[in-house]
């Protein structure tokens, strides 16, 4: 490869041909930085996302649900690891990325700053939050950056299973006792608006949209994905016999799309800024686990060093 211009032309050509950029390819600094941030924040979201559902592992009301939820939380840890791995191919080690999370320089999806108050919240998260995440993530399976796209393919497969399980929980509750139905409705009441906010603010207000679109990091606008999600989800709520907590929600016969009421974007930005109901708790748990576990990681490092030294000596002696 000759000059930077040639490298950029080559890069642009790959992008234009909808081909994958791999770790060994040249890439603009901004592309690399944007991806590191996006992939890392996605990874952080998986890790932090273990907490609201992890909150119900010990209390799951049947052994089958306990097993399914445990498998889900385990998957989320795995997703986090894949994604940190993908981010590491761009040159930043996991430890540095975690440090950015712990010090607030990188964020995670704000949806996880809400509290899971009942067992039905576990169902609502699977149904709505994973549902919204899938909407956001399926397009990323065709993201220009290879390692990220491949991680997303693996993740999307598992996440659609999780979403079905969440919906199953809601279905059982809505067919169940009065108390179960009330629990399901209450969870929907609390998770609906935060879930549709997961797609981010209206495109008109979005900052990085265009460049990310051009680079194949983002494929669809926020509003388009949000609409897609709502159109898919309203019939599911009808099937459950539950009421979406939006009095303005109605079907526009002409367009065939559901029109929703005004979203409280002030609340959205407030939660982004760290004032969500469980924001402090999420970080305290994450940082607490990391700092509390430092002696364990140090021990593992020390042990590995001892083994390496012994192997070195064995090699020398041999």
């Amino acid at each position, binding site marked *: 490869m000759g000059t930077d211009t040639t490298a950029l032309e080559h890069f642009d050509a790959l992008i234009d041909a909808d081909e994958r950029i791999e770790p060994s390819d040249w890439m603009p600094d901004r592309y690399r930085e944007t991806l590191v941030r996006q992939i890392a924040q996605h990874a952080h979201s998986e890790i932090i996302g273990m907490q609201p559902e992890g909150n119900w592992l010990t209390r799951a009301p049947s*052994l089958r649900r306990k097993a399914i939820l445990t498998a889900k939380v385990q998957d989320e840890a795995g997703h986090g690891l894949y994604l940190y791995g993908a981010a590491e191919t761009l040159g930043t080690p996991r430890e540095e990325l975690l440090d950015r999370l712990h010090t607030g320089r990188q964020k995670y999806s704000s949806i996880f700053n809400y509290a899971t108050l009942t067992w039905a919240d576990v169902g609502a998260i699977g149904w709505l939050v994973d549902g919204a995440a899938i909407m956001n993530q399926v397009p990323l399976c065709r993201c220009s950056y290879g390692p990220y796209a491949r991680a997303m393919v693996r993740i999307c497969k598992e996440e659609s299973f999780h979403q079905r399980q969440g919906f199953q929980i809601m279905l059982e509750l809505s067919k169940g006792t009065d108390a179960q139905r009330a629990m399901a409705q209450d969870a929907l009441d609390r998770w609906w608006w935060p879930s549709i906010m997961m797609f981010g603010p209206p495109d008109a207000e979005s900052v990085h949209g265009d460049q990310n679109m051009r680079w194949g990091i983002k494929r669809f606008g926020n509003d388009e994905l949000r609409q897609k999600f709502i159109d898919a989800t309203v019939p599911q709520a009808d099937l459950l016999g539950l009421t979406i907590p939006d009095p303005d929600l109605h079907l526009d016969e002409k367009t065939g799309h559901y029109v929703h009421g005004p979203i409280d974007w002030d609340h959205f930005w407030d939660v982004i800024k760290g004032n969500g109901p469980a924001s402090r708790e999420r970080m305290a748990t994450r940082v607490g686990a*990391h700092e509390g576990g430092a002696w364990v990681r*140090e021990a593992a490092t020390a042990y590995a060093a001892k083994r390496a030294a012994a192997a070195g000596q064995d090699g020398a002696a041999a």
Partner: protein
Amino acid sequence: MAPLVTYTLRQGDRALVLAQRLLEVVTHAPEIEEDMALSNLALDLIGQARALYTYAGEVEGPTADGSVRDEDHYAYWRDQHEFVNPLLVELPNGDFAQVIGRQFLHDAYALPYWQAMTSSTDATLSAVAGKAVKETAYHLRHSHSWVVRLGDGTEESHTRMQDAIDELWRYTGELFESDEIEHELIAAGVAADPAGVREQWHSTVEATLAEATLDLPDDGPMQSGGRAGRHGESFSYLLGEMQVVARAHPGATW
């Protein structure tokens, strides 16, 4: 209650109660790989418990109304004194060394136990054992590795790991107790003979502790009672938490 039922429940409770303690650690582990490993452990143990509880219900046979007790009956609708797990697995989580120590001492028992049970004359227990042996081999590999890393890591980790083993030791004797309930089952080839299991357990533990540069504790007086339904004070809290949602909705399905 028929000896086979009590015996089966002892194994099922051992698995479920241990899984419950592990689930409490998830999102608090020292690294993400451990959150994964511990939840994987828990998942396997829950699976073992489900199979054993289902079998216990079949052996107990239909109740007055004709129904058979299912896995959730045993998990959510029995009271404290009816749980017959050994005390070791119900101990509250301490630091990571204690969690690993408890796991290791358990896995070093469970592997030879399930290996012996593959030869059980009870077809169901033998089948459960066949699956459990594979799972437990992985579990033991994991816990063994951590005992060694922590024992032969830093001074701090060594101290914590030694303290954990020293504190847990008094709960190991109960794993190898047998009583009238088990004698006939052992004689019939249904139940594994604890003496044989103990020999392998001790051999594994001795080797691992040595590799970890840890001292093997002397056998002192052993704590006991779990297998007879007499638990420690932390158990009623564990049970209360585990059963709270299910019991708030009697008759509900999930």
